[in-house]
């Protein structure tokens, strides 16, 4: 039982990261209908920027906002410079450009910082509390920061004029343009926000998994799975999906271990985490593409 709670708790902590990434993916999907395959590598790049700032002697909590801002600018300029000309391009061109971005950021991180594993120390104080046995301080910190981020985003979209304009631009670009909203810039802002959220996710997960250019591949896959489970057109759903997938990931491994202990037959364990994500992705896509909370898209014939 204790182990089960432990697994769920660390699943929630991982889920926080998946939720961040899923949210970043959804932000871009809602406004442009693109699935950003480079999201994970962007987050990884931001995490390296944080590492660099730490190496220069800055405090983590100073470095993180600065890097998030920098990532925001990178995101905006990617949208303005690289993706702008592709607004009406066929899907294949867009996918190929995303893969190109993925390759560039991946290899740039390797070229600048090398392929040796680097560690980022956890920015959270090491304190003990009720339930310390179940969950570590860094995991609590990940969940808390994620929730704060989500609340801030929610407030931004719900209560500020700019947030309203961005929602309008995503929902109905033509009418939004008629109402005087600069839709193109709203898309770029969406990209910037997504990159900034990714930066937070990347630098929070780096202390848990170590920093290296490949660190994001599996995390991105779970981010995709989370976004799909929640519904890739729904920001709230994506967050819920991220947490669900995080818990599911750990539970499946836990149940696999339990099953092996009881019957002696190995079916599934930690080594199959990516396969589990693959199965989740394909199952959701084929059985319920709109996810749990997404809007069902209807094709006009």
């Amino acid at each position, binding site marked *: 039982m204790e182990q089960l709670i432990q697994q769920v708790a660390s699943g929630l902590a991982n889920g926080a990261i998946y939720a961040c990434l899923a949210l970043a993916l959804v932000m871009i999907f809602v406004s442009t209908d693109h699935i950003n395959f480079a999201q994970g590598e962007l987050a990884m790049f931001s995490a390296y920027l944080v590492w660099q700032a730490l190496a220069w002697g800055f405090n983590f909590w100073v470095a993180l906002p600065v890097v998030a801002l920098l990532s925001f600018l990178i995101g905006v300029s990617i949208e303005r410079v690289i993706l702008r*000309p592709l607004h009406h391009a066929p899907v294949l061109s*867009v996918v190929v450009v995303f*893969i*190109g971005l993925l*390759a*560039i950021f991946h*290899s740039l991180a390797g*070229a600048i910082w090398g392929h040796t594993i680097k560690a980022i120390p956890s920015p959270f104080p090491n304190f003990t509390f009720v339930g310390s046995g179940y969950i570590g301080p860094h995991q609590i910190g990940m969940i808390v920061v994620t929730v704060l981020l989500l609340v801030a985003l929610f407030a931004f979209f719900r209560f500020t004029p700019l947030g309203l304009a961005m929602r309008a631009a995503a929902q109905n670009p033509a009418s939004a343009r008629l109402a005087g909203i600069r839709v193109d810039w709203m898309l770029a802002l969406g990209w910037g926000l997504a990159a900034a959220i990714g930066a937070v996710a990347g630098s929070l997960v780096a202390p848990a998994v170590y920093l290296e250019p490949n660190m994001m591949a599996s995390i991105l896959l779970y981010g995709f799975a989370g976004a799909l489970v929640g519904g890739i057109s729904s920001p709230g759903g994506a967050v819920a999906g991220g947490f669900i997938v995080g818990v599911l990931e750990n539970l499946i491994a836990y149940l696999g271990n339990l099953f092996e202990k009881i019957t002696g037959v190995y079916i599934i364990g930690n*080594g199959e985490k*990516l396969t589990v994500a693959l199965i989740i992705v394909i199952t959701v896509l084929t059985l319920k593409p709109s996810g749990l909370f997404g809007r069902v898209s209807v094709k006009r014939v």
Partner: protein
Amino acid sequence: MATTTANGIADRERSRPALGRRYWLLGAVVLLALLPLLGGKTGLISNYGFLQLSLMIVYAIAVLGLILLTGFNGQISLGHGAFFAVGAYAAAVLIDQANWPYWATLPVAAMLCFVVGYLFGLPALRLEGHYLALATFALAVAVPQILKYRHFEWFTNGVQGINIFKPDPPFGVPLSADQWMYLVVLAVAVLMFWIARNLLDSRTGRALRAIRDHTMAASTMGINVAHYKTVVFGISALYTGVAGALHAIIFEFVAPDSFRFELSIAILVGAVVGGIASLPGAVIGGVFVQVIEKYADALTKKLTAAVNLPLDLEPWTIYGIALILLMYTMPMGIAGGLALLWRRLRGS
């Protein structure tokens, strides 16, 4: 739908070549087939050189598989490395465990990959565009883990992979093993390109392109969309799988980590750089992938020395830049660009 605008060009280009061009093609193949005599015996091309040539041809076959699916049927795949892996493992396991001769493993690898591709094509039927890209992306990322699965270990040998040995030429043919395998690979490639061309020129090929250009119109014309889409997924996987099997044989080694996401990207890069809806494009793509993989280091060293760049660029940087630049300048790849240039020069 993915390539509608530019495909008018590609299709016209692909109609049966004039007699002159057919002789050129035949001449080129004969020349390539004589290379072991011309280059190998005179020492111009080393065994290592033949290995490189074979790898280029192997990648060309793999790229051809993706082109059939994406270029001619409009289904995007970011996960063709998976089928490459299935083919490679099929060949390696049969040679290692069952002592099969290498040539007999090729048809088995082909059939197996056709079945796997066909099965993956079934859920893919419900997915379009970005979603299909996402599903195949997930497949590509998960492949190494699936290959390491504990219950497969008794035949895949787990993380260690499988060592096999390059076959010697039969009947005492006076060629080195590399030269012989080069000829085998070349023969398989010629056969598979020939089949692909005939397939695309047939009723099936027209159906595939009709589905790509306008699925609904195609289905109104009585084309069984689901049938063609799944079958072409199988055929595409078959091509890439045969490439994988050949790769395993000439490389003498398979291991889960040779089939990471990078491989799927390399195949995609080949298809995009060569020309997504063009058979000659597959050849250009295959050569490009192998050349970049081999010479990116040397190239970037020269570059960094010339302009004093403070970092070592990697093959992936070149891949990424090539992908993005090509999308803006030549969306139909090098083959498409050359065809366009040729037509302009002819003034038609």
